[in-house]
């Protein structure tokens, strides 16, 4: 059975779904579950318990067999991911798509607001930063260092979402070269932004509950099935929808506290990758 040799390990809210879809267009690359989300096998015990035999059935045969799971870079919230991968796929390559770390942390908070899990205001959610998953996910250097302890650095390609959006073809070519596949391949769909997560609906707790019931009843594949299910919820029924939460402005005080943690992380990432990430705020 084919084992994967490519892992897109994150980061959450950095465009990994789009990247996965672009890569999957390449004839030498077969991503698993494209369009259906993720199988966070090495991070979530509920998947890990299904066993390696089950996991391997998820992959198709191709020179590059890949999966993406953003929770592979949630350390310490999902420990042991690099350890589990190194025992299973010691020759794997990794792509880590990142973006401005402060923007990402806020985007993570906003995403969970929308999906009903995050009920805290921005200020409450970021009162404490040391045990904060939104902050942990933006600590790119720390996440990467967990892997670098077990894999050689040439197995990693760190990409900036900014480049994927503004210079898509060159960024994808960089990924193709990294994966050792034909880098002259192109597809008309490369010019389109494939998935914008914010295009979905904002449901009220009641609407969310109904959507989840439907989802559970017809079978749950992945969280973003919810988008599709949400479209079954009739529009214009006030009790089922809620106004979208606008992306809030960060106070100077919070921005400063986040920068105190995330600026050194960004500096370390620049050192590790040799990339300048010039558009970032830290």
């Amino acid at each position, binding site marked *: 059975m084919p084992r994967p040799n490519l892992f897109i390990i994150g980061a959450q809210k950095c465009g990994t779904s789009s990247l996965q879809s672009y890569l999957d267009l390449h004839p030498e690359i077969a991503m698993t579950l494209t369009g259906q989300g993720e199988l966070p096998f090495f991070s979530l*015990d*509920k998947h890990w*318990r*299904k*066993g*390696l035999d*089950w996991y391997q059935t998820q992959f198709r045969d191709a020179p590059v067999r890949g999966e993406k799971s953003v929770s592979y870079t949630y350390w*310490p*919230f*999902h*420990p*042991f991911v690099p*350890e*589990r991968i190194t*025992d299973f796929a010691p020759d794997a390559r990794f792509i880590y798509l990142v973006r401005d770390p402060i923007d990402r942390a806020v985007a993570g908070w906003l995403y*969970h607001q929308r999906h009903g*899990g*995050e*009920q*805290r205001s921005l200020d*409450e*959610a970021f*009162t*404490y930063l*040391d*045990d904060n*998953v939104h902050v942990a996910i933006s600590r790119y250097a720390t996440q990467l260092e967990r892997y670098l302890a077990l894999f050689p650095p040439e197995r990693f390609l760190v990409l900036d979402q900014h480049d994927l959006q503004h210079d898509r073809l060159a960024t994808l070519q960089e990924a193709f070269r990294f994966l050792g596949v034909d880098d002259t391949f192109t597809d008309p769909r490369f010019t389109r932004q494939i998935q914008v997560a914010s295009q979905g609906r904002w449901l009220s707790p009641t609407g969310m509950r109904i959507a*989840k*019931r439907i989802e*559970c*009843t017809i079978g749950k594949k992945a969280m973003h099935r919810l988008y599709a299910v949400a479209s079954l919820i009739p529009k214009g029924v006030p009790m089922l929808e809620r106004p979208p939460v606008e992306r809030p402005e960060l106070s100077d005080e919070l921005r400063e506290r986040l920068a105190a943690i995330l600026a050194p992380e960004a500096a370390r990432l620049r050192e590790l990758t040799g990339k300048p990430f010039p558009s970032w705020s830290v």
Partner: protein
Amino acid sequence: MIGARMPLPNLIVIGAQKSGTSSLRTYLDLHPEIAMVSLEDDELNFFSREVRWHRGLEWYAQRFRDAPVRGERSNSYTEWPFHPCVPERMKRVVPDAKFVYLVRDPIARLVSGWRFHTRHGEELRSFDETFSRLDDNLHVWRSRYASQLERFLPHFNQEQFLVIDQADLFANRAETLRRVFRHVEVDETFTSAAFEAQDRVSDEGRWLSPRGLKIAKTLEHTIGRNALHRLYGLASFIPKGLPGLERPSVERPIIDAELHERLSEILAPEAERLRALTGERFATWSI
């Protein structure tokens, strides 16, 4: 952020999984001075799971009824390092709470945990495959009682913790419950006829096939999910004797000498440290 009038809990049963915490919760809830969170909300997992933690303190506080002792139990509070921030968060939110840690023979617990997940269709690995790796094994970490407790101790006074053995809860129930009542400072003379009954033995019950499980789970989601163990009740809706919906129960796995040694290497020092920490003997344990 932490309002003085929020009815936050002052009793938390922190685990361990498959050690009788559900029964303990039921017994404690019988006491007139103790109000455990409702069965509907049982296992809030507030400090452990990000999806719950993100609901915020107000949501958490709303789960508790007013009573001298307000309690919750969530076994995932002793699943370090899989839930890495539990003691730190508790220190912030409930610094003066009393904690009860119900434990049992660490190897028997781990076997029971594996059977439990197998039975619910969540563990698809054979027993041997599951325990081929021990370092990153959740079943093993749940049995590393000393490591779990040691995560809490730097943040709290040791007197805030009561560690009890499931064997005592089963064999000397009234006396063991009195110890818990004393620990949380309620009337320890309280007794109930229901103390005599063993609340629930979750290793009993029906073994559903993947298909039967799917139907039961769909039913569960449709009529509303209370807690995982609703499933036990729901399984009884699945008609008996229908082919394809049931499967033979998984035999209690045999631990061969090699695995026993590997497990003991990790769990025996843990048991020793727990004995040293608590002064208890845990005389019935295999290690």
